[in-house]
């Protein structure tokens, strides 16, 4: 079967939501069992006592990137049908900075706060509730940010095109960088004083 199997019409769109629940469960399980329900474990990355975020995040990124390219190579996925986030440079950077501050304050990102709610962490629930306020505030003040929201538009641009190399070569460098980071993280973790949490 050529993926994505829903937009290619092999299974009916009614299955879409069932798959959504199943994939969400896999997502939630992976996050929680790796320790992403604990804000103190997540934030450990920034103080060097626990690099679980770096390890899980980049392992997932390289597994998915390499996997997608292999699926595409063997004709199992139509890469042109995948949803590629359009690039809006200014808003991506400014939004990323705001999220970074929120990350350091709250210790969660939206996905991990959901995992925290799933195991009963009240700080996760409060964080998630805060997001509603943030989204509402943005929507209400949209006219102030409208220009920024649409500026720097580059369409669904791929990062390998920025460097002028093939997707495969870029992914190869990505894997090298990730592996280097994993060994670096292990080295730093040995040097840093252990924090109990």
């Amino acid at each position, binding site marked *: 079967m050529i993926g994505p199997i829903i937009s290619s019409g092999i299974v009916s769109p009614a299955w879409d939501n069932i798959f959504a629940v199943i994939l969400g469960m896999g997502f939630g399980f992976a996050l929680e069992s790796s320790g992403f329900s604990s804000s103190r474990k997540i934030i450990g990355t920034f103080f060097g006592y626990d690099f679980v975020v770096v390890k899980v995040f980049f392992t997932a990124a390289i597994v998915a990137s390499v996997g997608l390219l292999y699926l595409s190579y063997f004709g199992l996925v139509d890469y042109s049908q995948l949803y590629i986030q359009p690039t809006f440079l200014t808003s991506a950077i400014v939004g990323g900075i705001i999220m970074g501050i929120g990350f350091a304050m709250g210790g969660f990102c939206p996905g991990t706060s959901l995992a925290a709610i799933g195991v009963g962490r009240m700080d996760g629930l409060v964080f998630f509730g805060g997001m509603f306020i943030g989204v509402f505030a943005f929507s209400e003040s949209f006219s102030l940010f409208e220009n920024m929201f649409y500026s720097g538009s580059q369409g669904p641009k791929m990062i390998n095109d920025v460097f002028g190399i093939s997707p495969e070569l870029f992914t190869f460098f*990505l894997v090298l960088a990730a592996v280097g980071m994993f060994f670096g993280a292990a080295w730093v973790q040995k040097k840093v004083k252990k924090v109990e949490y």
Partner: protein
Amino acid sequence: MERKYTILAILMIVLALGLVVLPKKKEMKETDPKALLSAVVEKSRYLSVDLVTHRIIENDPTLLLIDLRPVDQFKLFALPRAVNIQPDSLLTATTLALMNQAGKDKVLLSNSDLTSEKAWLIATRSSVTRIYVMKGGINEWFNTIIKEKPANSAASSTELDLISFRKAARQFFIGAGETASVPEKPKVKEKVQVIRKAPEASSGGGC
């Protein structure tokens, strides 16, 4: 512990390296330019509207009509069992799977020849075989089959045959006894099948 991770890291790097060194399939699948040139010069890709009409009426199972016109025009009027494919989605996997069906004659048609010719070239280059162009497109089809033309008194018997065939075809498409001076909806109207590039999930986009 360290050793296990080293092995895993090497495995991942080898997998990624595999992507880089694997030969590119797409380039192998493309038609050689010389073969393409001779195919372009060769005129056998054209099918006349009479021939196509004949095969429609005969319910020829090997015929696959690919209509390249915009969706609104297609919805307004289409030949029976034609599939609407937008030119921008010619190379999606869905379309290619459709066009690579064995034992089917793919006939491209648009309003005139221009779009069909372009699509024919692209499809041929992506190694689609048994692909044809309906000469003159829908306009020619309409002028030939639907518009009534009085028989010339000096017509030969083959021409008379053709005229009577067209008359029969006209009845097949619009019903007997009617004259078609304006483009009207044909009686034979099957379920409209439209293939378009999947819209980007912009509303659900984000995160």
